[in-house]
């Protein structure tokens, strides 16, 4: 069992709850984001919709074969979401942009787990099966999972998928950021390794932000001045730059506030060291004692 540095309580005894806390003042919330994580930059102006990333993802993660082959162009006619059989999908959007021959220009958008810096799913997970690793990956440990699906409720990007048709041992399925591969020296995620047009750039998040800023600065006509994922929800490991407004290609505007802040602040300010339950217990005990004392005296008074 790992000690949570911000204090944790431990349940002792069968009848009651006692306190064994370590840590600091829980009143002020602070981010638990890793300092120097890896990330991935998606350049939507470069993506050609070849779906090689989907194919590589399927292969390196040993996912089941798709219904339609990866080179079937009709797949792009429907808007898809990641599923328990596909960690990443590419969708096509027509935003109304025209080329020089007045033909609509498509924008392709790859979606997968964003690997948030302060992930809501990690905060929500009842058993800590989901963790944010130092290298940036949001990692799922099936050995702890009980299948409550609270992570899916929490995820603002609606990414985790569930094996709903497995009656006994279903798993939460989502992009792993190829955790094992990127843990090795020089390892790349399957999708970033295969991308033929360098629409996916893997590297340290801080470096990627510089790369993104440089591209935007060098070609301001090509890009919007917005790196999606730099500030959204306190930052994500996967980030996007685009020539089309993000709202028109399936992204939602999101606040800069990390999602876990509110619930964690409520939980820790109320329940650190179990001070409020202990106080309530003492108050009720006092009330009970005084009412019983009063009733006993009045009964005795009545008898004599």
């Amino acid at each position: 069992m790992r000690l949570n540095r911000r204090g944790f309580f431990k349940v002792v005894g069968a009848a009651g709850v006692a306190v064994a806390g370590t840590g600091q003042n829980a009143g002020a919330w602070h981010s638990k984001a890793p300092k120097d994580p890896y990330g991935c930059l998606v350049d939507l102006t470069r993506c050609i919709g070849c779906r090689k990333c989907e194919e590589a993802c399927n292969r390196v993660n040993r996912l089941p074969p798709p219904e339609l082959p990866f080179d079937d162009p009709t797949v792009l006619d429907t808007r898809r979401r990641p599923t328990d059989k596909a960690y990443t999908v590419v969708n096509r959007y027509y935003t109304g942009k025209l080329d020089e021959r007045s033909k609509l220009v498509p924008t392709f958008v790859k979606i997968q787990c964003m690997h948030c810096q302060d992930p809501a799913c990690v905060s929500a997970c009842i058993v800590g099966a989901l963790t944010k690793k130092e290298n940036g990956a949001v990692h799922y440990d099936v050995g702890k999972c009980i299948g409550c699906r609270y992570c899916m409720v929490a995820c603002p990007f609606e990414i985790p998928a569930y094996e709903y048709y497995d009656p006994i041992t279903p798993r939460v399925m989502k992009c792993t950021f190829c955790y094992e591969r990127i843990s090795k020296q020089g390892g790349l995620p399957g999708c970033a390794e295969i991308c033929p047009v360098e629409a996916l750039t893997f590297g340290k998040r801080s470096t990627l932000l510089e790369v993104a800023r440089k591209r935007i600065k060098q070609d301001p006509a090509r890009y919007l001045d917005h790196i999606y994922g730099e500030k959204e929800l306190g930052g994500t490991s996967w980030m996007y730059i685009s020539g089309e407004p993000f709202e028109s290609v399936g992204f939602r505007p999101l606040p800069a506030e990390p999602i876990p802040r509110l619930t964690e602040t409520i939980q820790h300010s109320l329940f650190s060291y179990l001070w409020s339950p202990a106080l309530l217990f003492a108050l009720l005990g006092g009330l009970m004692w005084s009412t019983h004392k009063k009733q006993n005296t009045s009964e005795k008074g009545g008898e004599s």
Partner: protein
Amino acid sequence: MDAQACPVNQRFWTPGVVVLAFLMAAGAVAIVARFVGGIGYVSNLSNARPWGIWVGIDVASGVALAAGGFTTGFLAHIAGRHYYEPIVRPALLTAMLGYTFVVLGLIIDIGRSWAIWKPMIFHNTNSVLFEVAMCVMFYLNVLYLEFAPIVVERYKGRVRLPGLLAIFNGPAEALLSLADAVLPKIMWILIIAGVVLSCMHQSSLGSLMLIAPTKIHPLWYTPILPLLFLTSAIAVGYPMVVFETTIITSSLKRDGEMHILASLTRITIFLLGFYMVLKVGDMVVRGTYVYLLDGTAQTNSFLVELILGVIVPWVMLLCPAVRRSRRALFIACTMIVGGVLLNRINVFIVGFTSRLSDGSYFPSVSEILVTVGLISGLMFIYRVLVTYLPVLSGAHQEVSS
């Protein structure tokens, strides 16, 4: 005044009980299907919609409507109002069975039912759900221990197990004697712990959905949602007691505890009024009243919850004529119970939207059968237990007092 509780001595297989048994059987079939084909085989849940009525009704509403247990326990045993003693045992039984079925509902809903013990080993103290789970686990045990003296009272020195089971007569007797020796000494701890644990997880159930600010409709998403959940649970405790006592006394043709119920609802005026002020005040402070007339299903559901579930019954309870009339009191309390039920459904289901993927959801027939089956099972076991155990107060209580 001590109300004498005694077992119910009446024909068991009434038409109502037969219907319950039938619904239980239908639910059992759906539950078997869930454990054969998976959650997806029986439910309309999806990746965009991971929680449905099994969480919204079986778990969240189940916990809220079992609040009668700790609120009456507080009144009679901590505040020392022994006048209310006759309703403590039925409310305790409802709470005990309610929480038992909350856990059964969870076992069906979670994907890896066999792993339900894991939160005891793997802790995430950042998780609201972890705290809720720990509280529910401890409180369920507290409820069993609080109920144990009723079993002791009935069977101590009288254990006669049938047939081969007779070899367990000795151990069962020893267990009852042990309970009889220990429980009275620690009962005060259990009663207070029950109230404390209830306040903790009733409020935290409201914090649960605060992890999804982008998905919950602003009419319900408020930082004071935990406070609203706690105050509504406390407010619904006594109306729930009135609701079930009226049903039980009229179906078993017993005397209703009308004088007790009427004074319970006088307390409810304050408790429900407090919840109402918080709920309306929250709406005004956050300015969410701008949504009220937009005509969407979510807004309409909110209006029904607030007007028919809170404001109208509160006004009704203000009238002494309503509190004196058994029928009117029952209607008002049913509306309050329905209002809290609808609130939990609204927060967990109606108010939940997924903008990126198709998250439309309506429960499947099998999902509904599981929920209905569980509720029927609860009522059936309630009927069985009041037949064998002294839970309901004696038939002539009202006459003699």
